[in-house]
């Protein structure tokens, strides 16, 4: 057996060696057009040079912009590993974090997040609201410019809001601005009915008294509006460039003229996206540029990191043990909780989970520590509450429903069913798209068998089928894993958007609690920050206690970072690279 394997390997080497030699030679000798030749030689020399000098920044060697910075070739470019190439990075149409991270380098909203995820002035230097918290007046910084030197005015921001709410745009995140007066009406206007469409557009609660001022009014008090004003849907892409480029304008770096710390310089689909520093940004970045390098095979990415081609590498959960025990990589590996929460979601209207005691039994039965450390290789941290650590509203005191087999058995005995054998059949649905999910769900099923004596039936489904089933309470799985990924760091986004009885997410699980609703309404509309947090805290306690979901874990942000990189902050919202929200402060030695 071993012999056969060895001959196979040998045969393969015999086969590949000649071509390898040809390949190495080819990289060193330019053959074709000069532009292509410099491009191919750069990575090779960069890789060979790592031992002695700083790697050459091959990323910015060729840029589509004629105005490429001479400084960019000095090697002060952060090379970040990204897993999946984004589908669309148009500010008003994007929805995934891999898309948003790009936009947030290129653009800046009225406000932005600082290294503690607090909302701080961005393009606006200040803002104020009326006493009711329904009218917000933002004042832009003086002399704001786009990266191309053209003036940035309040009209550019008004256009962003208008484009988001526009039914023609139909961006997936348009509803995030539905707090703004007239936005929901505009979004539901009939496009072909010109009169209605124009009237709805004109009724939008946004005005620009002058080039420095933008006034936004809301349907009801929305104290979290300044945070929303920093989101990607508010990024001021230029109207004339969007019109010029048509539907796919966003693929052209020269049309993505931005006002953020960096500026798109090259967009090479499925391969690499390069940024250069925006010299007109009010808080000039320290890096010369950023290169996002897309590698979906994690073994290839690890090899690229070892070859000195990446500064930041995102390991796959399956690679974590190997990375941690590696003498070189281990000390460079960091992980910290992310802005997401996953739990065991119950359908609270179907048997047996309409009985709170059964839900309680399952919540007590989950060994979250073992699950995260052993089954998920330390890819997550256990939690018992909803809002994650590092986000306003985090409840460090929550200790209910921690792993306790005795309490789990007792809860099941107290339920209307009385014992495991009287429970109806239970199906545990999961997405089969991620192959690692099988082992994870088998572990949980085994836990329920050992602790409660309950036999749950595992049901792997393609992720689209699972999402389709979860759209309606009638087809919602009895139990499944799921949760929330933050849109913006405000407790409102975590609690009101998900758990209010008016929210689709809560409705699907069949959850609604009038007392929770009362607290949420109070918190959402109060202008006093302390009152808000207190009311959100009370609501969260109730939700966790009602157990529509048994809270389980927060996935971590995990990276291997080259020691030459410094000055990055670590926030829970760093799901693409550490310090992504304050990238202007990152440095390379």
């Amino acid at each position, binding site marked *: 057996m071993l012999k056969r394997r060895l001959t*196979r390997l040998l*045969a*393969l*080497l015999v*086969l*590949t060696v000649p*071509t*390898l*030699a*040809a*390949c*190495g030679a*080819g*990289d060193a000798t330019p053959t*074709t*057009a000069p*532009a*292509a030749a410099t*491009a*191919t030689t750069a*990575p090779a020399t*960069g*890789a060979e040079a790592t031992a002695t000098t700083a790697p050459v920044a091959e990323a910015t060697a*060729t840029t589509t912009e004629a105005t490429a910075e001479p400084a960019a070739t000095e090697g002060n470019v952060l090379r970040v590993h990204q897993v999946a190439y984004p*589908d*669309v990075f*148009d500010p008003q*149409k994007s929805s995934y974090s891999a898309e948003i991270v790009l936009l947030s380098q290129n653009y800046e909203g009225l406000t932005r997040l600082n290294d503690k995820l607090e909302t701080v002035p961005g393009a606006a230097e200040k803002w104020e609201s009326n006493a009711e918290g329904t009218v917000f007046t933002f004042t832009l910084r003086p002399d704001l410019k786009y990266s191309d030197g053209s003036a940035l005015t309040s009209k550019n921001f008004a256009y962003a809001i208008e484009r988001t709410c526009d039914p023609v745009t*139909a961006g*997936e995140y*348009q509803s995030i601005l*539905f707090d703004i007066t007239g936005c*929901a009406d505009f979004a*539901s206007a009939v496009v072909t009915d010109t009169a209605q469409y124009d009237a709805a557009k004109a009724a939008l609660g946004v005005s620009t008294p002058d080039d420095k001022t933008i006034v936004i009014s809301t349907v009801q008090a929305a104290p979290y509006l300044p945070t929303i004003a920093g989101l990607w849907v508010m990024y001021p892409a230029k109207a004339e460039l969007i019109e010029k480029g048509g*539907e*796919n304008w966003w*693929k052209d770096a020269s049309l993505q003229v931005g006002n953020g710390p960096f500026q798109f310089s090259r967009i090479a689909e*499925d*391969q*690499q996206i390069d940024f250069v520093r925006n010299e007109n940004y009010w808080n000039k970045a320290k890096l010369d540029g950023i290169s996002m390098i*897309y*590698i979906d*095979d994690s*073994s*290839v990415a690890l*090899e*690229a990191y*070892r*070859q000195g*081609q990446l500064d930041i590498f995102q390991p796959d959960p399956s690679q974590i043990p190997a990375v941690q025990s590696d003498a070189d990589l281990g000390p460079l590996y960091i992980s910290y909780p992310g802005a997401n929460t996953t739990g065991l979601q119950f359908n609270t209207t179907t048997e047996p989970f309409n009985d709170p005691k059964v839900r309680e039994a399952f919540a007590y039965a989950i060994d979250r520590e073992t699950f995260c450390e052993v089954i998920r290789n330390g890819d997550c941290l256990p939690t018992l509450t909803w809002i994650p650590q590092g986000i306003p509203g985090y409840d460090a005191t929550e200790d209910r429903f921690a792993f306790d087999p005795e309490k789990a058995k007792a809860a099941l005995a107290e339920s209307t069913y009385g014992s495991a054998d009287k429970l109806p059949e239970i199906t545990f649905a999961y997405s089969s*798209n991620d192959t690692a999910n099988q082992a994870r769900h088998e572990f949980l099923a085994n836990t329920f068998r050992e602790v409660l004596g309950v036999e749950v039936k595992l049901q792997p489904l*393609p*992720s*689209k*089928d699972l*999402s*389709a*089933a979860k*759209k309606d309470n009638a087809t919602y799985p009895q139990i499944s894993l799921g949760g929330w990924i933050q849109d913006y760091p405000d407790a409102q986004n975590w609690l009101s958007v998900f758990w209010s009885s008016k929210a*689709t997410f809560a409705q699907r699980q069949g959850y609604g609690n009038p007392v929770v609703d009362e607290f949420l309404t109070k918190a959402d509309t109060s202008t006093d920050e302390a009152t808000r947090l207190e009311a959100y805290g009370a609501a969260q306690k109730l939700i966790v206690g009602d157990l529509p979901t048994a809270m389980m874990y927060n996935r971590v942000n995990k990276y291997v970072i080259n020691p030459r990189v410094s000055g990055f902050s670590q926030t829970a919202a760093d799901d693409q690279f550490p310090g992504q929200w304050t990238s202007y402060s990152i440095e390379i030695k």
Partner: protein
Amino acid sequence: MIGFIIRRVLAMIPVLFLVALITFFMMKQAKGGPFDQEKEVAPSTIALLNRKFGLDKPAWLNSAEFSNRLSTEGNPFLALRGLFDSQFGNYLINAVQGDLGPTYASKGTETVQDKIKETFPISLRLGMISLAFALLVGFPLGILGALRQNTIFDYFSLIISTIGFSVPTFVTGLLLLLVMSKVFDVAPIKDPSVWQGFSTSYIPPAIILGLGTMAYITRLTRSSVLEVKRQDYIRTARAKGLGDRVVILRHILRNSLIPVITILGPAVAGLVTGSFIIESVFRVPGIGSEFIGAIGSRDYSMIMGSTLFFSLLVALGNIMVDLSYGLIDPRIRNS
């Protein structure tokens, strides 16, 4: 000859229609739509998107629109367009005009034909190199194995083709990449511009992509040459005193080409449409990953477009094969 080509091209039309019909039917059986995701989009926005992309219309036939137009216009022939104002009908009508529709993954900002135009040239180049590799290695190996049957050459040819057949590409691909990187210091990340136009970066993925075809060609050539070798006319050729060279080149090889050429049609179509795994390991921005990604994301127009495109390539490949038979074998040309 021209009549033959026209007949074959016309025969492609019903084939492509059937492919479209079956693909559309199977696609509609799968649950979930392009805008269903774990993180839910507001129902009002989904309704907007469905209307924007015509997904609010009936899947097959729009009888409501038909009766509506019949009552307003009265002309049943004009009203027929209303009957086909359905997802499938509109797709076909647009596809015939060369518009394969918007990709839903890009929220409709890109079209399927743009995606094919962007990625296919790269896959085509990769496929051509791997085909050249498969032919240049597979064919001689097969001939060698047959002419020196049961010698060390034959066993060598057997080993190579067995590896090509049995070891999956995610193993050979990653192995090749790691060997290149660790032993020869070839960096895994290339500048994106290397894929625009031919470059040496195509060679490693092309070898891995061509391994299976190479193995198949080797085995097929070997058995075909063995069979021809035993034919009476070979004995005749030798008996009349022809040299080894002439016998092998003119009599044996030419006659043993037919089965190899037969498989080339579908093989070429398979090679030029790329492979998800190889594209992922070697970071080739080709068409293979677009195909696979579309199914998981229920990107209806991309699924339809890529299936039709692939079928078109297979059909064209088969026509080319039929034409080349005539060039090699006069018997086929005359029949």
